[in-house]
């Protein structure tokens, strides 16, 4: 991460949410997005779960001394993630009884997402607490926004509904409801974002 003194708040927001977007640029936790986020509701539950697990795991992980060997640290991160998972699962299952069933294995797998395992050590935990928290929150918000938009568009084009409310569309692409369609759609999303970033870079140059 760059020196916070040199960066304005808007560039911090832009870098954390857009330029280093967790899903579309870094490719973090894309499997749950592809499989689970096929409707707006499922996407919202995924975003909520990811936010809670990642935020608290990273927050607690920041207290782990950096002197420890990387291998040991990663094991501790995962252990913390597992500890955070238990209350999160209880809360989510009480709020949305069907959610755990829908998400299947991808729910517990969120504790081993590459954001916690790799990016935390290289980008976040080396920073000061305040800056780390800001980056973490913005990163999570960036993830949530993409997941929500992705779930919304996927639900509209594949089922012709928004959160269960029918909207009349002339053509429905049912394939996008399936995981392989999700892969293609996420690829299109990533390509569009990268295209926009390139365009911004060109214009600013």
């Amino acid at each position, binding site marked *: 991460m760059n020196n916070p003194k040199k960066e304005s708040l808007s560039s911090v927001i832009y870098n954390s949410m857009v330029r280093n977007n967790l899903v579309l640029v870094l490719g973090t936790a894309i499997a749950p997005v592809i499989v689970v986020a096929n409707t707006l509701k499922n996407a919202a539950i995924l975003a909520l779960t990811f936010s809670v697990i990642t935020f608290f795991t990273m927050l607690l992980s920041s207290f782990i001394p950096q002197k420890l060997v990387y291998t040991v640290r990663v094991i501790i991160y995962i252990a913390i993630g597992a500890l955070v998972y238990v209350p999160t699962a209880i809360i989510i299952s009480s709020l949305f009884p069907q959610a755990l069933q829908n998400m299947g294995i991808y729910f517990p797998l969120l504790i081993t997402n590459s954001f916690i395992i790799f990016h935390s050590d290289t980008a976040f935990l080396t920073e000061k607490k305040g800056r780390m928290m800001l980056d973490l929150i913005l990163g999570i918000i960036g993830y949530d926004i993409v997941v929500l938009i992705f779930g919304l568009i996927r639900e509209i084009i594949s089922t012709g509904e928004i959160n269960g409310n029918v909207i009349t569309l002339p*053509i429905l*692409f*049912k*394939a996008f409801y*399936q995981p392989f*369609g999700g892969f293609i759609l996420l690829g299109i999303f990533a*390509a569009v974002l990268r295209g926009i970033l390139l365009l911004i870079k060109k214009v600013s140059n």
Partner: protein
Amino acid sequence: MERINSKSDILISADMLIALLIPAVIAVYYYGIRAAMIIVVSVAVCLLTDVICYKLRGRVRVKAEISTVVTGLTIALMMSASVPFYAVVTTDLFAIIICKHAFGGRGNEIFNGAAVAFLFSSICFPTEMLNYPRPAVHLSLSSEELLNTSLFQSMSKSVILSNDAASSSIIDLLVGKFCGPMGTGFIILFIITAAFLMLRRSISAISFCSQFAVIVIGTLIYCGSDIKYTLSVLCGGMTIFGMIFLSCDYRTMPKTRSSRLILGLITGVLTLIFRFYAGAENPIIYAVIIAAPFGIELDRKMLSFAKIISNAKKKRTVTAEKTKETDESGLNNE
């Protein structure tokens, strides 16, 4: 990906185009103006999309690149004659944008675009794509009149459901006069086409023959030597058409002969598995898509294997020469 022989892409595509034009004419004869319109729309959309994609990517498009026309025509012939035009357009867009240009354009395709796009559209629009009018029923362009046309499941699907040979006569099977995609059932024509393309070296003879042998032998074993059932399997489900225009596609065909043979065998076996154990209506499509990555890997393995063998041979020759020289110098000293 490398092309299968020294012929240029354009010549191979031209051969394919000629081979596809004949079933296109027959499809128009069977289904009338609507079939012609589907073909025109499909080819036009493919060409237009290709030109736009090249522009967006900032690359120059070779004017004589007719592989796009081949893709458009292949897609059109795989369609039901009653298919709505939006399904045709979606399939074309998917084939050109996602399967061709997303992978880097001409020569870099991993999968056959027409096969993947057809599969995508048949999942998106199953009712429209997989229900067919009776052959020799001329369809109009008007969608209102089309609503009154009776649609049926394909002959391939009926054979799968009844587990018995098709109800059509053998002659009808041979000339493609049964419910199914509008240009994929004329088995006699396709056998001649395959021979022509093999002679012209535009498709891999090894791959085609190995697939054909595996499918025929496998079906004969499965159905207890029932000739009509075997014929139903070959004519229906785009089997022969898929073998020629999808499976032996030079763009995804491996370079070495041994790889092509193995790929043909794998595709044949996969087709049988999808046909008899998964009950897939168009098993060749799934087989082609799944076998494509094998082709790439097989090529790598076979080339490295050939390299190892040639190196070993070279080493052996050098050692033999050295031994001979030592022996000769020893004899001279003596």
